[in-house]
């Protein structure tokens, strides 16, 4: 069961890599967050821990509902074209994503998580999310993709946190959530400002400051 959800996360990540347009990207992110929520929820259910329930609820509220909504509403508000502007086309991106996944698998093996079958895969998925998130930020032109890439990375870290040590201390978790939320808002604000000043959100063209 858990493994299937994990594969779901991985799959949705690949979908994000292949996405060419903004709504597709946000939608895939929704799926991914939802799978993450499921995992945490199931873990909470298994171990019957209250704090994990709260975390799961927060994930559902923020990452599945609020943030995607906020992003897509900002996107429609500022009226830019929906394409993401790929540096690397989606096929090649997918191959790179696969390589990164393989790399993270090697990496998790190397790290010595030989214990459980589940956590081995979970860690692989978590790391691959971190790496693919970073890859998304690097290879897509638009400001939004960078926000989403960051969120993907963050999701990966959550997954990692949950799978290797059953989550962090509760208040830390909450603080991190709050932080993530604020940062997304701040970034959204800046995307808004960029659009206003430059009349585009193509961050690749933000290169006045160099050298």
């Amino acid at each position: 069961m858990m493994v299937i959800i994990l594969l779901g996360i991985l799959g949705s990540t690949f979908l994000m890599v292949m996405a060419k347009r903004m709504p597709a990207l946000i939608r895939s992110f929704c799926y991914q967050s939802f799978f993450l929520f499921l995992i945490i929820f199931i873990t909470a259910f298994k171990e019957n821990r209250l704090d994990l329930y709260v975390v799961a609820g927060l994930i559902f509220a923020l990452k599945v509902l609020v943030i995607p909504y906020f992003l897509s509403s900002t996107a429609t508000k500022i009226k830019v074209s929906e394409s993401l502007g790929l540096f690397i086309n989606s096929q090649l991106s997918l191959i790179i994503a696969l390589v990164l996944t393989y790399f993270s698998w090697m990496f998790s093996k190397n790290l010595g998580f030989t214990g459980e079958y589940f956590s081995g895969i979970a860690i692989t998925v978590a790391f691959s999310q971190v790496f693919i998130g970073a890859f998304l930020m690097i290879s897509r032109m638009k400001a939004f993709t960078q926000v989403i890439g960051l969120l993907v990375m963050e999701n990966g870290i959550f997954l990692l946190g949950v799978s290797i040590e059953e989550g962090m201390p509760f208040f830390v978790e909450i603080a991190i959530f709050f932080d993530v939320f604020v940062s997304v808002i701040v970034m959204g604000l800046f995307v808004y400002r960029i659009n206003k000043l430059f009349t585009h959100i193509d961050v690749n063209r933000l290169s006045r400051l160099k050298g």
Partner: protein
Amino acid sequence: MQILFILTIPILLSVAVLFIKKQRVFGIVNSMGYLVILSASIILLKEIVSLRSSISYFGFIYLDILSAFFIFVVSVVAFAASLYSIDYIRKDTESGVISEKKAKIYYILFNLFCFSMLFVPALNNLGMLWVAIEMTTLISAFLVGFYNNKESVEAAWKYIIICSVGIIFALLGTILFSYAFSLSGGMKSLNWSDMVASAGKMDKNTLKIAFIFILVGYGTKAGLAPMHTWLPDAHSQAVAPISALLSGVLLKTAIYAIIRFGIITIKGVGFQYFSNLMILLGIISLAISCGFILVQKDLKRLLAYSSIEHVGIISIGLGIGGILGIGGAMLHVFNHAVTKSLMFFGAGNVVNKYRTHNMHVMRGVISTMPFTGFMLLMGAFAIAGMPPFSIFISEIMIICAAFLKGYYLVTFLLLGFIAIIFGAVVNHFSKSLFGNIPKGMAVVREPLSGKLAFLFLFVQICALGLVLPFIKKDLVWMVQTLFQG
């Protein structure tokens, strides 16, 4: 108890902004507040030094000598920046660059920013540490993009994105650290004090990987090359007092975090690993900053690259270790904070006067603004590592440490890069400080509070070289308590 003052005053001040109408009055109140913070931090530092132990509240706040030292550094620069802000912001509002309302926002953000930076060293929980550092990024991003023009928004965007990515790696590292910790003892805690205690039992492999993530993550924030790319953009576009804070202390908070994790790594893995990584990144930082400083035209970017250089030196100092190396690095943290703030204040004045960042256009600064010009001249020599200024002392300590420990190549590179940077800095500054005044420039009188900020910093630049023999014992003790056992 002092920590209460230190942490609550900025919050109170940021609330007070809303109630005090006159901007000038508030500016003065603000700097008085920071004076209190400064004295509190000095008392705290003295207390910890004399107690020779750490103070802990609820396991949440943990103050040892390292924290006290960094709080001290932050409060020194914050006080200077608050002094400098009074006239700087007033001038901006008078000339219509920013509105009265924006000035208030500036003060709120300023206080929040200082609060978050003062908060960082006080925390025991490494997760909260991460949160606090991310908070500094988010708050200062607004201050970087404060003028809301194309350059500053671009800088702010780069700043926020690059730092966030970096810091996510740091979070990854933090989780791996806690994983290693939980494997070793079964206890579930993110408290630094707990982790250090059982550092020896942790899994070496995990610690190694975790430290790489920490180093890259917080290294991004600290401005270690090649993750430094946000730094020149952000520093050059921020409001001048904020540039000083960014360069003077924000980078240092990230270094603080690296040191915290570094101590655990050293105890778990051994010093060599830590040392190699730090020296490698330090040398790369030096090399890259050296090249950029040589051909730089933008005054504030030049200073930003100089910050990268000094962070590199600090990193090398930490990597070399020993009382000389780490002691030197600690002193360098302070010296660089003070000197670089001075330089950014000066640069702020100059940029305001000449309305350009381009050093090729600035000529005869010392004639148009004698006081600022003089301070910049002294600061330029100080930042380039000329005695009798304090940076020379800490640099020579680090160089000496490298040499005595047998890192000959490192010594050679350090000396070489520092010499080249010296040449470049002197070349750039002598050209714009001296020379003929451009047409239509009048000689101006500088405001008092600005002068006070300069003098406050300048005294420290000059004095530290002389104070060294007296603080020697404490410095040795500090390094020993932190890195031994």
